[in-house]
């Protein structure tokens, strides 16, 4: 469904993303992991149209969307959440979600109805009339998710949607994400919370310092020496192996 081909992004002298490629098949939940500063959000921004790539192509459902504006991509069915949540602060939860719903429903009544549905799905049903700025962190994350869902996307880009949540909140939201996929939405998620990645993702890509260094099923990727070194530093893989050998 989504094909990212050799995407690069240069900011002045800094090469933030270096020929990164990935493919997201329809109906899958794919993870994108990597240490901080690896370029994951930049990659997302290029896929969703907020940052123009220096090199490379993005294809969605076969069409080349590399140069398209963000709102056009949303109209095609690419939804995204932001790592730093961006609620419409002056509006209520319902009004926030309705903005997303209005993409597919022109009439107010329809949009509001759809917004209520989506809110209930993610667990915000009781907060519909609250001001968006009055929500907790967990609430705002759900709002981000709900807004993007309301646009009835085919592909959902989740940028660290679990960051800042405590373990029980994470536990509650994982089935919601799985439920979204089960309803036919393909998901590509940036995540740091490994528990969620292992739990949800069928396939994982690892980005470090702008380059894709590994891909595969979560268990295999997490055991990969390059990946361990990317997170823990040079020589870490060997050290860990030595420790394990020592324990065995």
């Amino acid at each position, binding site marked *: 469904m989504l094909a990212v081909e050799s995407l690069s992004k240069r900011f002045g002298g800094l090469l933030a993303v270096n020929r990164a490629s990935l493919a997201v098949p329809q109906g899958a939940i794919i993870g994108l992991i990597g240490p901080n500063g690896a370029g994951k959000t930049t990659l997302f921004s290029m896929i*969703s149209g*907020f940052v123009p790539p220096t090199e490379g192509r993005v294809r969605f459902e076969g069409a080349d969307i590399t140069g398209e*504006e*963000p*709102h056009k991509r*949303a*109209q095609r069915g690419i*939804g*995204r959440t*932001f790592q730093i949540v*961006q*609620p*419409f*602060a*002056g*509006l*209520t939860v319902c*009004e926030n979600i*309705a*903005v*997303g719903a*209005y*993409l597919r429903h*022109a*009439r*107010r009544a329809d*949009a509001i109805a759809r917004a209520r549905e989506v809110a209930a799905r993610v667990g915000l049903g009781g907060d519909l*009339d*609250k*001001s968006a700025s*009055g929500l907790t962190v967990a609430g705002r994350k759900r709002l981000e998710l709900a*807004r*993007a869902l*309301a*646009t009835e996307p085919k592909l959902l880009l989740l940028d660290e949607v679990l960051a800042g949540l405590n373990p029980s909140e994470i536990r509650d939201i994982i089935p919601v994400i799985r439920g979204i996929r089960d309803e036919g939405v393909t998901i590509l998620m940036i995540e740091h919370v490994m528990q969620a990645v292992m739990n949800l993702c069928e396939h994982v890509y690892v980005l470090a310092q702008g380059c894709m260094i590994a891909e595969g099923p979560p268990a295999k990727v997490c055991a990969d020496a390059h990946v361990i070194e990317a997170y823990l530093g040079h020589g870490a893989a060997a050290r860990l192996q030595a420790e394990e050998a020592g324990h065995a």
Partner: protein
Amino acid sequence: MTARDILSIAVLIALAALVPLATSASTVLNFLVFMLIIALGAQGWNILGGFGGQFSFGHAAFFGTGAYATAILQLRYGINAWVGLGAAVVAGAAVGWVIGFLSFRSGLRGSYFALVTLAFAEVLRILANAAGFTGGAAGLLIKLDVRPENLQFENRAVFYWVVLGFVGAVLLLTRWIQRSRFGAQLVAVRENEDAAKALGVDSLRVKLRAITLSAGITALAGCLYAQYFLYIDANIAYGTWISIEFLLAPIIGGVGTVFGPVAGALTLHGLGELTKAFAGRIPGIDLIVFGTVLVLAIAFAPGGILGLLGRLRAKGAGLLPTGSKEVSHAGR
């Protein structure tokens, strides 16, 4: 838009329509007509500034275009005043679209947008002051020919009702926008443009629609001004004074609300008249009051008068409002 909305606006307009029956003093009627014209232009500003969050400091550009359009069409081409009215709205909307396209396409927001609108208005003022067909520095006098076909009426009250009718129509329009997809998208762009784009909102198109609509309405106010006072020059039509009037009223009354601009225009000018009654000998005293009210409003009541009333009402009801039927917003 619910029946209740239409009813509340209709009742308000009906009550206001009774005012000329209580007095026929021409000074009072002049004041009322002027105030309504300001309210109308302010309603236009409010669509772009209040709902859209783009504060224009140069709405005179649209007011003046409307005024000059109708004056020139009548004086130089003998076009009927009512047709001139339509042309004024179209001309103003066109100018709005152009300014909007140039500014928004370049990504101008906030203070930069305010500055560029100020500059556009100033350019038009200089041009109007210099050009022959706008009458140059001498201005334009619309011929006094009191007949209804010419949008000139023997009885000033009739003009008052005409302007009031337009104000009422725009109130309905504003309410409709507020409950429409366009309105929701516009407000979303105001709150967070990137988030709105990610949700499929074509922010450029939405902003362009807003400024075009805003400009058309303000141009209508300009046309009505020219039609009532029958004289305009570059400083009246394109001067900063009118740009300031159109932004003061919504901010004082409650920016981003339906009734805010009207409430603000009423309050400001009522206050102005009151001030002049007590201290009229001092020139500029009413403007000093306006400026002070603006600063006080920003400091203590960013939601304007309607915001204050809302808070008082909520305190009276014993709880603070959590939802938003009419959400007031200070500029963001």
